[in-house]
C-alpha cells in the first residue's frame, strides 16, 4: 500500500519532536508543597539534584504523549494520502465512479500458462473491481475492441445485470478502436464522482494515469500460429485457395496443414516457417465444393486463429453485390464471380442512371469505361483501363509496351502481386491529380506512366488499372485474380463474400417488412436485433461480429416472427496484428485524453488517493486530551492548600 504525501514541506513540523525532548531535558524547578512536618522526612538521594540545568530525557507518560501528539499533527500537516483507505476502514467515504476498460481484442482469446483464456481471467479481474462497488458508486465497463461496446450500472440491480452481461459476453475481437473507446470513456463519466479508471488488458492496449491490470503474459503460452489471410484464385476454370500463415513462435518449424470440405480432407501439406515469418501455401479446390476449412495442425496459445473458412457460394443476404459496367465482359467478370459470395450484375456502359442502379451495390466495376461526372455511383469503384474522367484523370497518349517500374508491395492491394514479365501491350498514359496514389507504375523510353493507382471520386474510393486484361497477358497470370480479390477487399472491406473477421460490423440491406434480425454464432449463442421497419423500401442492418470463429447464420424475421430469409457468414479470427502475441502492437487509448476532465486532477489523483490527515488530527487531539488528563491526574498532589503549591 502506497502512502503519498501531498505537502512534504509539512515534515518541518517533525522538528517539534526534538523541541519537546529538549524541553523535557530541562531541569524544572520542583514544585513546592506546604507541609507542616519536615522532621520525619528523609532526604532524597542527591543525584536528583545534580546537573541543575539539563538531565537525560525522562521516559515519562507525559513526554510520550506529547511526542505522539506532535508526530500525529506533523504527519497530518504533510497531508498523507492512501490509495486504498477503504481497505483499512471497510467503507469509503466518497462515492467513486469505476470505469473499467476491458481489452476485448482478438488476442484476448489466447490461453494463459494455466490453460485459461485471457478473456476469462480478465473478466475475473473485472468482477474483482465490481466487488468493490458500494452504494452510490457508478460502474461503467467499456469493452475495447474493433467494435467497442459499453454498459453502465449505478445501483445494485444494474450491477448484477452488469455481471450477467459480462459473463455471457464473448470476445468481441478485432483491434481496439482507439477513438471510439476514448469517446465512450469520456461519455460515461458521471458528475460529482471521483473517477477510478482501470484498464484490464493482455498488454495489447495501454492508457496513461490509470490502474492497469495485466492478464496473461505476451510472450507466454508457447507462441502462436495463425492463418491470417485467404484468397481465392481462379485460373481459367480451376479454383484454388492461397492461405497465408503467420508463425509467431521462437523456433523454425515445419507445420502440417489440412483442408477439409465437410468431413473430408481434400488437401494436406506442410509449410516450414521461421520465427516471425509468414508464408503462403496454395491448394486446388475441386468443383462442386462450396465451402472449405483450412486448418493448421498445431497446438498453440490461440487455437481460434488456426483455421479459416472459405465459402464459394454467396447468398442474397450477406453476399457482395457488384455492378459490372462493361460492354465486353471478360476476365474481370470471371474473376469477380469466383470471389466468395459475390453476386455480379452486368450493365452496358451506355446504361443511364448507373448511380441509381448501383444504389444498393457494394462495388461498381467499370471495365473499359468510366462514370459520367453527373452519374458517379455512391459506392466504391474499380476501374479497368477507364476512359477520361473530368477532374480525375486524362489520357495523354499511349505507351506501346511499357515495362513495370515501381510497385508498392507494402500495400494490401499489391501484396503478393507480381508484375514481372507481364506484357502490358498498348497502355494509355494517364495524367492523375495530385491526390491520386500510384501503387504501380511503368515506363517506356520516354515517359513514366501509372499502371495501378487509387484515389477518390465524389468522396467514393476507387482503384484504377491502366492495364487492359484483354490486350495483355496479365489476365493469364495468378497475380491477376489475386490483385482483383485484394482490390475488392480493400475497397469494400472484409464483408465481402459473407466472410469477415471479429471486431468488424457487417452491414447489409433487408426488406422493409423485416422487424428483427436473428444472429446465431457457431456456439449457438443467439442475438436478436429489432428493426423499426419501413414501408416498402429497404432498411440497413448493421451487425456486430465477435470473435467466435466459424459459420454464423443470420435470419430475417417478420412481424409474426417467421423467418422470411436467411444467410450465412464465415468468421475467421486470423489477424496479423492480433495473432502476433510475442510483440503485440500496443494501442495507446490515452492519447486522446481518456478520462481527463478539464480543470480536474488526473484520475489517479482524484479517485485513487484518499487524504487521511483528518484522521491524524483526530488522533492528535485525542492524545492531547489524554495528556491533559494525565497532567491533571499528576497534579492532584499539588492542589493548593493554604500556602499550597507555588511555581
Amino acid at each position, binding site marked *: 500500500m502506497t502512502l503519498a504525501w501531498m505537502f512534504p514541506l509539512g515534515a518541518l513540523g517533525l522538528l517539534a519532536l526534538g523541541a519537546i525532548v529538549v524541553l523535557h531535558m530541562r531541569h524544572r524547578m520542583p514544585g513546592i508543597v506546604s507541609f507542616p512536618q519536615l*522532621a520525619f522526612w528523609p*532526604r532524597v538521594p542527591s543525584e536528583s539534584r545534580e546537573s541543575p540545568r539539563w538531565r537525560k530525557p525522562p521516559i515519562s507518560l507525559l513526554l510520550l504523549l506529547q511526542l505522539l501528539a506532535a508526530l500525529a499533527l506533523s504527519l497530518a500537516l504533510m497531508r498523507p494520502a492512501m490509495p486504498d483507505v477503504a481497505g483499512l476502514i471497510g467503507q469509503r467515504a466518497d462515492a467513486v465512479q469505476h470505469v473499467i476498460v476491458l481489452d476485448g481484442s482478438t488476442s484476448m482469446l489466447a490461453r494463459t500458462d494455466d490453460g485459461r483464456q485471457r478473456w476469462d481471467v480478465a473478466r475475473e479481474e473485472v468482477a474483482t473491481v465490481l466487488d468493490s462497488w458500494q452504494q452510490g458508486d457508478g460502474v461503467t465497463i467499456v469493452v475495447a475492441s474493433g467494435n467497442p461496446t459499453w454498459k453502465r450500472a449505478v445501483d445494485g440491480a444494474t450491477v448484477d445485470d452488469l455481471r450477467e452481461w459480462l459473463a455471457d459476453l464473448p470476445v468481441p475481437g478485432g483491434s481496439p478502436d482507439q477513438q471510439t473507446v476514448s469517446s465512450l470513456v469520456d461519455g460515461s463519466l458521471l458528475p460529482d464522482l471521483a473517477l477510478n479508471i482501470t484498464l484490464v488488458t493482455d498488454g495489447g492496449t495501454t492508457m496513461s494515469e490509470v490502474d492497469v491490470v495485466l492478464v496473461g503474459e505476451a510472450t507466454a503460452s508457447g507462441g502462436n500460429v495463425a492463418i491470417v489471410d485467404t484468397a481465392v484464385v481462379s485460373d481459367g476454370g480451376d479454383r484454388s485457395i492461397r492461405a497465408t500463415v503467420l508463425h509467431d513462435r521462437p523456433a523454425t518449424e515445419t507445420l502440417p496443414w489440412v483442408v477439409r470440405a465437410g468431413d473430408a480432407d481434400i488437401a494436406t501439406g506442410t509449410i516450414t516457417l521461421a520465427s516471425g515469418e509468414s508464408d503462403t501455401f496454395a491448394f486446388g479446390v475441386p468443383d462442386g465444393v462450396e465451402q472449405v476449412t483450412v486448418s493448421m495442425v498445431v497446438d498453440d496459445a490461440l487455437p481460434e486463429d488456426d483455421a479459416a473458412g472459405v465459402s464459394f457460394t454467396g447468398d442474397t443476404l450477406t453476399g457482395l453485390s457488384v455492378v459490372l459496367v462493361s460492354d465486353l465482359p471478360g476476365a474481370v467478370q470471371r474473376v469477380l464471380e469466383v470471389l466468395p459470395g459475390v453476386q455480379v450484375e452486368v450493365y452496358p456502359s451506355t446504361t443511364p442512371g448507373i448511380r441509381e442502379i448501383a444504389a444498393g451495390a457494394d462495388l461498381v466495376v467499370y471495365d473499359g469505361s468510366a462514370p459520367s461526372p453527373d452519374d458517379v455511383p455512391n459506392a466504391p469503384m474499380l476501374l479497368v483501363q477507364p476512359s477520361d474522367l473530368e477532374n480525375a484523370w486524362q489520357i495523354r497518349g499511349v505507351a506501346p509496351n511499357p515495362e513495370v517500374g515501381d510497385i508498392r508491395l507494402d500495400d494490401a492491394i499489391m501484396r503478393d502481386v507480381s508484375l514481372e514479365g507481364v506484357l502490358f501491350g498498348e497502355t494509355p498514359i494517364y495524367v492523375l491529380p495530385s491526390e491520386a496514389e500510384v501503387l504501380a507504375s511503368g515506363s517506356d523510353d520516354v515517359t513514366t506512366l501509372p499502371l495501378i493507382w487509387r484515389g477518390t471520386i465524389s468522396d467514393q474510393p476507387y482503384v484504377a488499372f491502366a492495364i487492359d486484361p484483354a490486350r495483355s497477358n496479365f489476365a493469364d497470370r495468378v497475380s491477376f485474380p489475386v490483385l482483383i480479390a485484394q482490390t475488392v477487399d480493400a475497397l469494400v472491406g472484409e464483408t465481402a463474400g459473407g466472410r469477415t473477421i471479429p471486431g468488424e460490423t457487417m452491414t447489409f440491406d433487408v426488406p422493409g417488412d423485416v422487424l428483427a434480425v436473428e444472429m446465431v454464432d457457431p456456439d449457438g449463442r443467439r442475438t436478436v436485433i429489432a428493426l423499426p421497419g419501413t414501408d416498402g423500401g429497404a432498411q440497413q442492418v448493421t451487425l456486430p461480429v465477435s470473435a467466435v470463429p466459424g459459420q454464423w447464420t443470420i435470419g430475417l424475421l417478420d412481424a409474426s416472427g417467421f423467418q422470411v430469409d436467411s444467410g450465412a457468414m464465415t468468421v475467421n479470427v486470423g489477424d496479423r496484428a492480433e495473432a502476433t502475441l510475442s510483440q503485440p502492437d500496443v494501442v495507446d487509448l490515452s492519447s486522446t485524453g481518456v478520462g481527463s476532465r478539464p480543470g480536474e486532477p488526473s484520475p489517479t489523483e482524484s479517485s485513487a488517493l484518499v487524504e487521511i490527515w483528518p484522521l491524524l488530527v483526530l488522533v492528535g487531539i485525542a492524545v492531547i486530551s489524554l495528556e491533559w488528563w494525565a497532567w491533571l491526574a499528576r497534579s492532584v498532589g499539588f492542589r*493548593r492548600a493554604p500556602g499550597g503549591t507555588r511555581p
Partner: protein
Amino acid sequence: MKLTSLARRLWVDRTGDAYAGDRVDDPQARGALASGLLPDEATIGRLRQFSFKHGLRPVDGLVGEHRSRRRGAAPEFSDYSPYTPGDDVRRIDWNAYARFDTLYVRESEITTELDVHFLVDLSASMNWSGSPQRQPKVEMARRVATMLAWLALSRSDRVTVTGVADELGESFGPLQGRGMVVPFAMHLTDCAADGSGLITDAMQRYARRRSRSGLLLVLTDLIGVTAAELDRSLSTLANERWQVVLMQVEDPTEIDPATLSAPQDVFELEDPESGMRQRVNLHPDIVRRYREGRENWLYELDVVARRRSAPLIRVATDARLDPDVLLALERAHVIVS
C-alpha cells in the same frame, strides 16, 4: 437558625485559602461565621448529657453545678454529722435530737464552678490543610473549643480562652453564662493562625500568669514539640495543680502523605512556620520512613502524657464533633455523662 444556615453555607463555600488567617470585618458576617463554629442542635442535645468530670480539681465559687467536697450551709441536704463544738448551732437538727437524743448537724452540699481554660495553638502550621475539601486544623480546633466552651458555660463554669501565636496572646474571659458562647466563638474567629510560637512554652507561661489553677484544655497540633519539652511543661503545670487535657489536631495528609504527588516526582516541602524547605519524593520507602518517624514521635508523646496524667486526645480534621470527638473525650474521661 438563619445565621446558622448562612454560616454553614459560608463554610461550604470557602476554599482552603479563605481559611488562611482571614479577617472578616463585617460584624454581621463575623457573627455568622462565629455562629458557624457553634455546635448544631443535635450536638447540643448530646452535650446536655455531659459535664466536665467533677473532681478533677477542687475549685471555688458558688454558682457552678459541680458538686464540691466542701460541706456547709446550703439548701441542698447532704448528710448528718455529729455535733462538735464550734459547729454552727443553727445547723443542729433539733428533730433528730428529739428522736435520737443526740445532737446532729445538717450537712449541705456546696456546688462550685470550674475554671476552664482554653489554650488554642495559632501557629501557622495550624492553618494548614492537606486538601481543599478539608478544613484547616485551626478551624477544627475552634469548633472543638467552642463546643467544649458551650459545655462549660452551660454548667456555669468560668471559661477563659487564650491564643498562642508567636507569643502568648491576651486572654479573653473569664466568661460565664451560656450566652457568652457567641463572644467566645467570635473571639476565636478573630484569632489568625499565623504565628510560630511553641505551645509548651506558652503553657508554662500561661500557668505562671494565672493565680488560680484550673482545667487547661490545649488545642494544638504539637508540631515541633518534643517529648522532653512536653514532659517538662506538663510537669510544671502539674506542680501548679493544673489539670491539663491535650487535644492534638491533625490532618489526614499528615498521617498519610502519599497523595501529595506522584511517587516519582521530586518536590520541595515547605514548613509554613519557618519557611524551611526540604526536597523529597513520595517513593513508598520514603513514605514508610516518614510514617515510622511520626509514629515514634506520637508514641513518645503518649508516654509522657500518660505519665503526667494528662489525657492526650487526637482529633482529625475530617472527624465529626458528634460522635467522634465527644466519644474520644468521654473515653478519656474528660467529660462524663
